[in-house]
């Protein structure tokens, strides 16, 4: 395709993708509470409010706690499963893998409703623990897929060499396999972390009225009117995601993680 057509096309897509973010960043800097763009005077007061008002600080803390623990839990489920699947190709491990990726294939409301009926029955409805475990299961797909990619990239001969030299399976895992898989674990954790931070419906169904996460807080404030703090939260979220994915892109192999076969060729 000709270069001009391509550039115009890419420009339009970039405009549409960044347009909403530009308006939100503008509004977040507004000096007055009135919703207006371009901003009337620049001020950081809505960012300060986000970090000082308890009504925003508590959801921030809840969201970070949930994202931190649930992605750790997701990682702990994904690592042994991906290892087992790579080491022994047996059908029941395959079946578990399919199970692990299914929360991502179904519309989230279905999984969320399943969690709701479970936690109500168990009696933990409304507890933060319920949100943590639910998020861990809901996002286990991400570390599972990235870590499996990591195992696939290990050259079998290296493992065999370690075993020929007398290393037992524990030593091989600790000294050879684990260091090679570690970057994929970090990316999987980061994916799960960012998505947990942004997740709404599972968190809402499982404990929405007692454990307010940031997305729930934003939606609640959206319902009852408008405050520029919502805009400043949005900017913080975008920057955080860009930072985390930027780090993965800088230190990891993002094209490969997303499924390109030979990124070096381009």
């Amino acid at each position, binding site marked *: 395709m000709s270069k001009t057509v391509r550039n115009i*096309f890419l420009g339009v897509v970039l405009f549409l993708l960044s347009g909403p973010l530009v308006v939100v960043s503008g509004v977040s800097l507004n000096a007055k509470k009135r919703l207006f763009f371009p901003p009337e005077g620049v001020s950081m007061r809505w960012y300060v409010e986000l970090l000082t008002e308890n009504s925003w600080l508590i959801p921030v803390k809840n969201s970070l706690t949930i994202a931190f623990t649930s992605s750790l839990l997701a990682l702990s489920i994904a690592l*042994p*499963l991906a290892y087992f699947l790579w080491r022994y*190709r047996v059908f029941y491990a395959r079946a578990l893998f399919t199970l*692990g990726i299914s929360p991502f294939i179904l519309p989230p409301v279905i999984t969320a409703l399943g969690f709701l009926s*479970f936690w109500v029955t168990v009696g933990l409805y409304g507890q933060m623990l319920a949100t943590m475990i639910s998020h861990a299961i809901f996002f286990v797909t991400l570390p599972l897929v990235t870590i499996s990619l990591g195992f696939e990239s290990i050259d079998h001969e290296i493992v065999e060499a370690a075993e020929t030299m007398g290393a037992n399976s524990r030593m091989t895992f600790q000294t050879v396999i684990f260091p090679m898989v570690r970057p994929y674990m970090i990316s999987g954790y980061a994916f799960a972390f*960012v998505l947990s931070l942004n997740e709404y419906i599972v968190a809402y169904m499982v404990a929405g009225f007692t454990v307010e996460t940031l997305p729930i807080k934003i939606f609640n404030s959206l319902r009852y009117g408008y405050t520029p703090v919502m805009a400043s939260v949005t900017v913080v979220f*975008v920057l955080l995601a860009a930072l985390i994915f930027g780090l993965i892109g800088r230190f990891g192999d993002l094209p490969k993680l*997303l499924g390109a076969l030979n990124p070096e060729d381009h």
Partner: protein
Amino acid sequence: MIGEKPKGVRAHLTLAYPALMLGIFFIVPFGLMAAVSFFHRQPGGFYIPGFELTNYKNLYTVLFGRTLVFSLFVAGLSAAVCVSVGFPFTFFITRMKRRAQVVWLVFLMSVLSLSEVIVGFAWSLLLSRTAGLSNLFVWLGLMDRPVAWYPGFVALLFGICYLAFPYTVLVLYPPLSRLDPALPEAAQTLGASPIRTFFTVVVGSLRNAIVAAFVMVFVFTLGAYLLPQILGRPRHWTLSVLITDAAIYQTNMPLSAAMAIFFMFVSLALVALTMMIGKGKKLRTA
């Protein structure tokens, strides 16, 4: 060694923990929800175990039917928009230098991770009267006075496409980046124009991937829950909203569960379709 059969209890211990976690916290909740969909609802929000088809029979309402059709329609339309814009877009990305690719991918991943509520909020600002795009048009002299472009169907469509677009690109990225660059080059050497090459060679050889991406995005957009409430009017509410509404606000878990199970079968049928298309592709290349 790798690929061998696991021997004994010790080898299987590795698998025990993930199996237990997924079993207890994913299979049990699903089974429970399926069971609840057959339970008997009592006035006041409680339900007692039993087996009846009342909840499924109660699905046959005008509201449910209309909502289902509308959800499928919106999802189909936005998936079509996303794939037709996303396919050439992803093609361009995969032909870029690695560094440029990474920058675009980081940007797309950042947009993808945004919560639905944030996407809805951002679009409601962009389409609002006081801070929105129409102000820019007034300033450019294209319009007389600023207007609000939401709530409405078009606003909803834009929001859903925005939400699904990065996902579309990620679904299309692997097949497009694996496409042999020699293929379009050969077509151009033989005299085809770049645009003709794109439509005949690139689109043609990836037809299955396009259909698979369409179905994936279709199912993804079926999950839209907050956008219809933020950018649409009540008549634009989707099945996800209806299910949540029944569970939380009407405290009718059995009905809500029945809706979810029905919804799941519709989605699973679509996923099965994707897999069938994937299999057909493998057979053809083999």
